[in-house]
């Protein structure tokens, strides 16, 4: 009470403005939309503009609220959707793992490099994130296609006779996902690793710990926040990824982002698309909360 009063004394009227503007914006354009998605997921598709029915109606002094569960029932009955959710989770899980395996040594090497090189490496890692994901994925299309560079190279050195089908398979999607999301794994890991006190490792060595042992017993546990942040920054968006499976994947690639896109743009079934989004959000709720907590922890510098 007193604390807030003392602050408001210091930010005369400004306090409400300072908190209010971002709060209202985020509420309007981030939180409220989810509530609408939830509402529409209970509506029925209709050929009209917009293409769904009203959930509540006002007639004869009565508000009638009709929660139509058929969209959710539809989702649970069709194996396609279940397979798409599982496919997305599987894709996200394994590509997160691959990113971690590749990204951790990279982040470690950058954090150990001298200051001037660190800046160069970091910019090299960050530069791709400033380039459209679309373009980077597109670059792989030319490499992986049946008459693309990779197959051409393998054929010319005589390793294979007939071109390998890589594009439009899950392998291509994995390559694309790891390629696109690697920087998002490396950067938080680096930010964490660079803060480590080098004398901890020296102390461990002094106490007789081998480099290998010190790495697993000291460096890895201390970088927990970085690992969590990196993994979440890869895992969560990949579950909903659309561009990569669309461009690199094939018919076997079932991912929920792609299915949602098709329901929305091709079938114009907004209620089912909304229901898909609601279920996806429910699945991602736990990782997102985990990420937010971890973010708060990292910002306050807690281990």
């Amino acid at each position: 009470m007193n604390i807030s009063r003392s602050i408001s004394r210091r930010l005369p009227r400004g306090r409400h403005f300072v908190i209010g503007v971002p709060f209202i914006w985020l509420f309007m354009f981030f939180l409220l939309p989810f509530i609408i998605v939830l509402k529409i997921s209970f509506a029925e598709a209709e050929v009209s503009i917009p293409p769904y029915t009203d959930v509540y109606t006002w007639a004869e002094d009565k508000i009638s609220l009709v929660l139509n569960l058929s969209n959710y029932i539809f989702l649970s009955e069709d194996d396609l959707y279940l397979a798409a959710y599982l496919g997305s989770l599987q894709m996200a899980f394994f590509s997160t793992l691959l990113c971690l395996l590749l990204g951790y040594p990279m982040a470690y090497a950058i954090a150990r490099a001298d200051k001037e090189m660190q800046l160069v490496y970091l910019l090299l890692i960050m530069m791709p994130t400033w380039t459209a994901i679309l373009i980077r994925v597109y670059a792989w299309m030319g490499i992986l296609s049946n008459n693309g560079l990779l197959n051409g190279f393998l054929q010319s050195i005589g390793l294979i006779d007939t071109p390998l089908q890589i594009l439009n398979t899950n392998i291509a999607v994995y390559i694309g996902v790891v390629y696109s999301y690697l920087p998002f794994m490396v950067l938080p890991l680096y930010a964490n690793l660079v803060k480590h006190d080098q004398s901890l490792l020296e102390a461990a060595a002094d106490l007789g710990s081998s480099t290998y042992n010190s790495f697993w017993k000291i460096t890895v546990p201390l970088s927990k926040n970085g690992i969590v942040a990196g993994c979440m920054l890869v895992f969560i968006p990949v579950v909903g990824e659309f561009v990569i499976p669309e461009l690199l994947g094939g018919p076997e690639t079932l991912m929920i982002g792609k299915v949602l896109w098709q329901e929305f743009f091709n079938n114009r079934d907004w209620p089912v698309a909304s229901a898909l989004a609601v279920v996806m959000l429910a699945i991602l709720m736990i990782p997102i909360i985990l990420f937010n907590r971890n973010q708060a922890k990292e910002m306050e510098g807690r281990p």
Partner: protein
Amino acid sequence: MAVASSAYKKVLEGDQQPKEVLVKIDRVTKKFDETIAVDDVSLTINKGEIFALLGGSGSGKSTLLRMLAGFERPTEGRIYLDGEDITDLPPYERPINMMFQSYALFPHMSVADNIAFGLKQDKMSRLEIDARVAEMLKLVQMSQYAKRKPHQLSGGQRQRVALARSLAKSPKLLLLDEPMGALDKKLRSQMQLELVEIIERVGVTCVMVTHDQEEAMTMAQRIAIMHLGWIAQIGSPVDIYETPTSRLVCEFIGNVNLFDGQVVEDAEGHALIDSPDLERNIFVGHGVTTSVQDKSITYAIRPEKLLVTTEQPTCEYNWSRGTVHDIAYLGGHSVFHVQLPSGKIVQSFVANAERRGTRPTWDDQVYVWWEDDSGVALRS
């Protein structure tokens, strides 16, 4: 390094000036959530004095200073400046300026712009500001660095700029937060002297916060010792060192030997204390007020007043046998750790007046003794 202490000088000369109260802190309490940082503190600060808040971390000294500056608002109590209630004034409306521990110089502004910042807020004319900035730079002898950025200055130079900036607006009260905290030891004693000189030349009233007792005793005329949010004792450096009123204060300032005991004889002009640690009673040259039920008391004596000899003292009270347990040679003096027959170890400072004299050495039988009025009896 010896620094001429103006406080000490004033005590010796007797401060004749009439005391006029500038700051009155009236029963101020500050709670952060549930923890009490400052607990019902009342004190007054006189015009023109340098007042130190001395205490360890978590003693509430910084919180009290921040309440004076206006960064924290007291949970209870009022603060008056020159008779005016400033408790609810925001920092930017108080005629109080602060020199921060980190100096908090604006990194993107030159030295001159840093000093001018406060004046600009007062909408002074350009000419007036320039004149004032030049005057301030001269005061702290930084005129040739006016165009520099803070990161182009050394630690001592930064401190001078910070001081000039906080004095530029001629505040009624100057606050110093750990003024020597960011300097290394050698520079400290030199800057302490300089700082006091400048403050006295300007004649500003000053409240400083420090955890360094030497710094407080060198610079301040009066010291308040804070502990866990309350004030343990207020007094001049001499008062606080020589007549501490509590065990806490005498343990906090300097080294001390403490003997717990019972008052066995209590008369108008003297008292006798029996301590299980000593073979002889302690004689105190004044009456000690104790309650009828509780006769327990603590006698405190500073190590430099506890003397070590090899010959048995002839007086009846105030001595004990012992063996030399350890000696630490510190150059100017040595610290003798003497073990009494009870097992208690006491410290004694022995000045190394001769380059090599015959001294008691390890495991020698010695006697420790002191003059009647060397120590103080403490009730708490």
